[in-house]
């Protein structure tokens, strides 16, 4: 996305459309300071925080997701993009939290399963879900089934998501889902699963509601799920 031009771009001199496009490029290039600056400029121009989030940040990250899937970008670059998005979101989050006409799609509980300490993918998914309009409750890493049950009780989520990076820990997702089923929770609560070693076949085998292939896709599918449920 970046070019070799040495000419410095002054963000505040760009009109709204140019600025949004530039922010998407800066996000793609992992330029945290520039994305934060662009976010502030749009807010100063009277943009609604939700619109900044959706048009500039989430759309930028959606493009990143496509290029990751197509093998154009790799994990380190995607994480830089995520950091840039985080920079913008740190400015938007307080405004969105105070907003009376909050457009929350519901609560999404997410956590890495027991025995697994990997959380980079989960954090990325959490950020995209937040960007999509979910209130995200992050249970962190190494979660036994009890943690998920407690969170369901406490937060009454619209969706629950589980993540695993290891072949040795992914079967635990099946254990959690089976427990949900025994308790009659599975009928009411869609469970999404994701993580590098997973695939659709595995998700089907453990009776997960939906498999999220990557962060951007997970957020899109989550929106569809709550849409269907409403």
């Amino acid at each position, binding site marked *: 996305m970046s070019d070799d031009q040495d000419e410095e771009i002054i963000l505040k001199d760009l009109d709204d459309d140019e600025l949004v496009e530039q922010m998407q490029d800066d996000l793609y290039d*992992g330029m945290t300071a520039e994305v934060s600056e662009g976010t502030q400029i749009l807010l100063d121009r009277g943009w609604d925080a939700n619109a900044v989030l959706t048009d500039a940040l989430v759309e930028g990250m959606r493009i990143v997701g496509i290029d990751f899937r197509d093998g154009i970008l*790799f*994990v*380190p*670059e995607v*994480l*830089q993009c995520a*950091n840039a998005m985080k920079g913008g979101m740190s400015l938007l989050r307080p405004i969105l939290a105070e907003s009376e006409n909050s457009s929350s799609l519901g609560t999404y509980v997410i956590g890495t399963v027991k*025995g697994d*300490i*990997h*959380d*980079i993918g989960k954090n990325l998914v959490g950020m995209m879900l937040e960007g999509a309009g979910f209130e995200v409750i992050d249970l962190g*890493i*190494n979660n036994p089934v009890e943690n998920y049950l407690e969170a369901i009780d406490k937060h009454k989520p619209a969706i629950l998501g589980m993540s695993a990076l*290891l*072949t*040795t820990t*992914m079967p635990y997702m099946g254990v959690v889902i089976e427990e949900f089923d025994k308790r009659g929770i599975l009928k009411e609560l869609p469970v999404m699963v994701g993580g*590098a*070693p*997973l*695939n659709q076949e*595995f998700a089907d085998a453990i009776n997960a509601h939906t498999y999220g292939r990557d962060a951007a896709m997970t957020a899109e599918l989550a929106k569809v799920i709550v849409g269907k449920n409403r």
Partner: protein
Amino acid sequence: MVKALPRTLIIACGALAKEILHLKKMLGSAGGSIDLQCLPANYHNRPDKIIPGLEKIIASKGSSYERILIGYGDCGTGGQLDTFIKNNKNLLRLPGAHCYAFYAGLNEFDALMEEELGSFFLTDYLVQFFDTLIIKGFGIDRYPDLKDMYFANYKRVVYLAQSENEDLQARAQAAADTLGLDYEYRFTGYGELAFTIETFSISENANV
């Protein structure tokens, strides 16, 4: 008359090449029936490339052999390697989820994980190529901030050593320092890799 051993192909991760060649040499005449073909070791970071890589070698050379040993653990394929093996005749793979597991021994590896979930494992190969596979492979050379993101939940580096080599031990300690983690050294030798290859090589049964 001594019956000839079945012709055997080992298709392995490049990270195991040195150790497998050493074992083959130690097996003497039984090792003579074994050929080794390796896939790039950096597939460690790209497990999606392992099965296509195996398929390519099996398609071009597999028919010349009576049996094939896949020199991988699950290695991040999420069980797909096992499905691939199940769907192909005369294939077998190394035990465990990763080389760390079959070097340490499966039970010992589980105990190490039980002891500290946040264990980051190194082998001789990974110590030797730490900069290429971990620092450059993870993009930490380009984006130093990522180091904390990747290793925030890790507590220690465990070097599972195949050889007793002071230089590698010093480099493993340095790797742990670079990552800001505690360091632990365990000599494992070849562990279950040796047992599997020995058993495989002396078996006359082609139906593994």
